[in-house]
């Protein structure tokens, strides 16, 4: 009696998540590959090499440049956070980290609110110089993309390198000093070599994010900046050229797989916390004058780069600078809640109009469904992984692969694979939360599985000996122990779903759009009202995701 049901259950734990992944990830992926190969070679007109190589080249060099700039700005910041205490440090650390956790669309909107044509910088300069057109043209330039990438990814460098730096045994540096090394020699001969693995890991991770960057480039770069992601999107949705989109996806997957592989080899055994860690040991106040200058400069720099865009975003959502389209006569400038009110009304009376409130409701529903799906399957997969004797790496790989695949590729896969009954994107809106769940699943598994693995077998045995049935063992012993980890996974899933842009941009049709899609649409429309509403929606997302991260921090903080 004891063996057979448990084996049956074990198989179920394996099979259900694998069916989910097989249908929603591997099948679309295979469809893309088939499409790319079969139609490419059957074509009368061969695809021009430049169609592929041009975006590939641009993607690589903008990613290299972005990653280099991020390291350049991030390493001193990591140093300051790892070594010094200063007033307001924890707050600055949380605020600095926030952009990475925010939806890309919100990050892009933040840069827009600060530096865009309607941003604070230009509005201020217009007043100051008494001109009517924005003096600083930064949107639709490479500079905007680079700034946004640094803004978005600097937290990775601060987290990964900063935590390695903070954990670096100060005795290493002291030992070098005693052996006769000057401060510079300590840095070049001890500190940097010891930090090298974490610096390389951070650089690769940042490169990977910049390589697969989509929302930022679409919103801030405009159509002339064709990265692989943007090219896949325009080929598929503007030119309906699915084979080329498939081929681009293939190239994209290969590149990300190589980088991910290199990264995971380097990161093996490294403890990389991506969330703010609010502890501080071995840190001190800056003492030497040069230290004080470095710390002060970094604080100013981080506030300008990391805090200003978010502050600009929030303040733009409640400030009116100019007349809305069609408004006449003198207008009231200054504080306003109009943009938030407008979220609930169809001012333009368009029949294609989807109210932002509806988009927010959609987002909420999708997020809840995503949490249900990813936590259920995540728990099953985590159990399967914990109990597995063989083939664990295969399961692990299957779960992690969607994370290494770009969101745009996921979206493309869905539209090529599910274009008819029984699963059709037009009639089956649950495909959106399914796509989100693919991205969220690895996070759930990665948080729940260690908690599960940490439960000693003796707990289950003790409960059984005391008379608990297997079900009671689960509800009374295991579930309470892993509930905290499951909650963390659920919050992760929730924020991932709320912010997901790449895959959703392929799948969201007419009235099924989500908040990030609505923000993108409003940002690409002219007029102060549309801009203001985009700011208002971004602020809402910012607050929700910010609170979610705050909750995560609290939950994880109390478990330590």
């Amino acid at each position, binding site marked *: 009696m004891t063996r057979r049901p448990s084996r049956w259950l074990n198989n179920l734990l394996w099979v259900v998540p694998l069916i989910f992944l097989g249908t929603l990830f591997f099948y679309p992926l295979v469809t893309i590959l088939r499409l790319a190969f079969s139609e490419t070679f059957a074509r009368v007109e061969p695809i021009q090499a430049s169609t592929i190589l041009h975006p590939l080249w641009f993607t690589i060099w903008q990613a290299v440049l972005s990653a280099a700039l991020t390291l350049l700005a991030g390493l001193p910041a990591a140093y300051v956070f790892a070594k010094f205490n200063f007033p307001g440090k924890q707050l600055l650390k949380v605020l600095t980290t926030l952009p990475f956790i925010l939806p890309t669309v919100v990050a892009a909107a933040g840069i827009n609110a600060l530096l865009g044509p309607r941003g604070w910088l230009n509005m201020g300069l217009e007043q100051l110089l008494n001109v009517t057109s924005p003096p600083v043209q930064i949107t639709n330039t490479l500079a905007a993309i680079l700034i946004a990438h640094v803004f978005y990814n600097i937290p990775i460098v601060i987290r990964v390198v900063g935590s390695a730096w903070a954990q670096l045994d100060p005795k290493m540096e*002291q030992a*070098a000093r*005693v*052996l*006769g090394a*000057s401060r510079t020699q300590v840095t070049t001969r001890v500190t940097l070599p010891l930090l*090298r693995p974490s610096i390389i890991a951070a650089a690769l991770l940042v490169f990977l994010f910049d390589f697969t960057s989509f929302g930022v480039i679409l919103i801030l770069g405009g159509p002339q900046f064709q990265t692989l992601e943007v090219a896949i999107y325009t080929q598929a949705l503007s030119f309906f050229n699915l084979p080329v989109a498939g081929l681009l996806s293939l190239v994209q997957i290969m590149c990300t797989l190589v980088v991910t592989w290199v990264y995971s080899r380097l990161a093996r055994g490294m403890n990389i916390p991506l969330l703010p860690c609010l502890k501080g040991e071995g840190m001190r106040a800056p003492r030497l004058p040069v230290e004080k200058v470095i710390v002060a400069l970094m604080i100013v720099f981080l506030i300008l780069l990391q805090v200003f865009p978010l502050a600009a975003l929030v303040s733009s959502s409640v400030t009116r600078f100019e007349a809305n389209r069609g408004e006449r006569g003198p207008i009231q400038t200054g504080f306003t809640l109009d943009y938030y009110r407008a979220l609930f009304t169809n001012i333009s009376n368009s029949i294609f109009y989807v109210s932002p409130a509806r988009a927010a409701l959609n987002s909420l529903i999708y997020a809840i469904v995503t949490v249900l799906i990813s936590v259920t399957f995540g728990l099953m997969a985590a159990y399967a992984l914990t109990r597995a004797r063989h083939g664990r790496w295969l399961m692990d790989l299957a779960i992690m692969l969607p994370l290494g695949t770009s969101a745009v590729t996921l979206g493309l896969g869905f539209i090529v694979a599910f274009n008819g009954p029984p699963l059709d994107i037009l009639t089956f809106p649950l495909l959106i939360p399914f796509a989100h769940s693919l991205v969220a699943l690895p996070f759930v598994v990665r948080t729940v599985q260690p908690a599960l693995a940490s439960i000693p077998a003796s707990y289950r045995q003790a409960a059984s000996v005391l008379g608990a049935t297997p079900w009671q063992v689960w509800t009374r012993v295991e579930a309470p122990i892993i509930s905290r980890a499951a909650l963390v996974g659920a919050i992760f899933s929730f924020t991932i779903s709320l912010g997901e842009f790449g895959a959703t941009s392929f799948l969201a049709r007419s009235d099924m759009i989500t908040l990030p899609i609505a923000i993108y649409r409003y940002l690409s429309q002219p007029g102060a009202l549309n801009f203001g509403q985009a700011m208002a929606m971004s602020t809402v997302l910012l607050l929700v995701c910010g609170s979610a991260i705050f909750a995560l921090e609290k939950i994880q903080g109390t478990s330590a």
Partner: protein
Amino acid sequence: MDTLTVDHVAKNYESQPLLIDLSLEVHSGELVCLLGRSGSGKSTLLRIIAGIEPADSGRVLWNGEDLTSVPTHRRGFGLMFQDFALFPHLDVRQNVAFGLALQRLPESEIASRVDSALESVNMRGFARRRVTDLSGGEQQRVALARSLAPRPRLLMLDEPLGALDRALRGQLQEELREQLHRTGIPAIYVTHDQDEALALADRIALLHSGRIEQSGAPGEVYARPASQWVAEFLGMSNLLPGEVIGTAPLTVRTGYGIFKPETAPEPRAGERGRLLLKPYGADLIPAAQDADTLSGKVISSTFQIDHYLVKLELAPGLVFDFTMREQAKEGETIHLKLSPESQIWFKEAQ
């Protein structure tokens, strides 16, 4: 002859005084063991001497030259850390060569000095090994070789055997002592283990309450502990509260009899304090006398190689240890005659 002078050094740690007015001298060829409880500031003192941390006040001098403004890497001192702090990104050879390379010595000289340093700690065959693959004892040897290779003017060792297990410690202690004496480099050896200090030291300095409580040759410190704290720290726990009733000769009244200890600095009639009765030098006598006698019930008497360890109960809960040549019967009441030199009077701190 070189001299390190620690001159009235004070240091606060998290706004609590850790070192208060600490002075110490170390001369060439001398191995000084700095002995104290954990948290007494021993390691901090080493870090101040090395220049890793600044003192709040006071100075560190080398042959009379003030080192306050000399940065760590120019002091020419060696410091061996408790957990060795070997550089994990370098192999054994590179670790030992680290200080030599910074002196810009020619490659050939570096190579030969690394070889001889590794040779001297019996680690020659380990040159190309990763330091993370070494056992604790091997790491300790490499750390010693790394500290000695640049030929420091002074070597400081911060509990160098503290991270190792007991069996290994005895063996390495012997090696360390031999190494340090051969090189003649003056050394400060920090430990909380009195047996280790006794085995190694030319001189012991006891650190307590931010000061050097007593300093001297090991035998001297044991023979004449300077304070009640020193006596207790060295494991002498036969202490009786009492009061001076006469000063010539010194006479002390306790709850368990009148005692006439050897002498004490400036005793005054009526002062209160504690009388230390050393465990050795007690003779069994048939009946109590009017002075220098202790009576009690034998709780246990155990044979230990060449003497008996007797636990004597003076009153319920008050048990003293004595070593005796003769066996005493358990449960029996006995009388001990204590020689004046086995008694030390500590007056109560004001």
